[in-house]
């Protein structure tokens, strides 16, 4: 494992491992050492972090009423077939 400085091109490939805590302590040290001296990579990390946050904000619609009704029907049928009371 090289003790030379990480290049920017190498760093961008390690960003996910960094966030996942998958780098060895030595790798993380090289990673963070490079960041201190490199504005481009600090900006890149910021872009990546904000990207992940933006992805995290994607929401879904609630269950549509027709789908809900269909599911309730399935559930009650299932209960009946399994000898459970359908009044609960």
């Amino acid at each position: 494992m090289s003790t030379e400085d990480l290049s920017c091109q190498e760093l961008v490939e390690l960003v996910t491992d960094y966030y996942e805590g998958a780098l060895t302590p030595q790798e993380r040290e090289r990673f963070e050492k490079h960041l201190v001296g490199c504005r481009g990579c600090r900006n890149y990390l910021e872009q990546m972090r904000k990207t992940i946050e933006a992805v995290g904000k994607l929401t879904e619609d609630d269950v549509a009423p027709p789908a809900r009704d269909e599911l309730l029907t399935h559930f009650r049928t299932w209960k009946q077939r399994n000898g459970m009371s359908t009044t609960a």
Partner: protein
Amino acid sequence: MRTTVFDSGALIRWSGGSQAMTTRLDNTEIPEPSLLLDEDQRLVQALKAGDEAAFMRIVSLYHPAMRRLALVYVADSAVADDVVQDAWIGMLQGIHRFEGRSSLKTWLFRILSNTAKTRAQRERRSVAFSNLGSADDDDEPAVEAERFQSSGPGAGHWLTKPESWQDLDERLASTETRRQIERVIETLPPNQRQVIILRDIEGWESLEVCNVLGLSESNQRVLLHRARSRVRRALEQFFTAA
């Protein structure tokens, strides 16, 4: 205390416990550490007893994510709805056998994923899942090589530095950006799309994703890396163009 367990090539981190983990492609349970919340157990018990409110609670918790994941396998919205309904029926039919060794969520989503795969094959609109667990889809770098100096003493360093996005928070939160992100995610290779959906949209833990999708942790990481890199690049282009 973490132990690292290898099982036929799958590297999975395990927090305590001595049970060996196996990855199965059927709907059997995969033992997990105590990811089970008390609510999970209570819901399962109530469900087994036929409690309708418990069922609808579980539905509201997981139905939207199931739909989103189904759409990775089957492009058609109506077919995806069918797939999800079938998965719920499958869950009800299997719930009496469910022993709670895995969380309800991962068990349910394995049913969903198997149901979707089967349906996709039948519809013959199946996407290319030939290397489902493989991270060898492509050798695409996170950032195009042209962005870096190719030779000389500065080789590997930025040619065109990335901009700071510190003043873009408003734009990032806009509907337009969200739509852009949705579009990019839709065009991701299915392997990558599944992982970014479950990890970054649904907020699942790495272990849960590996269990449901049958991936090793390192494979999952590579797929996540590629997916995130593509979305970042698309956003960078989007903000630069405007």
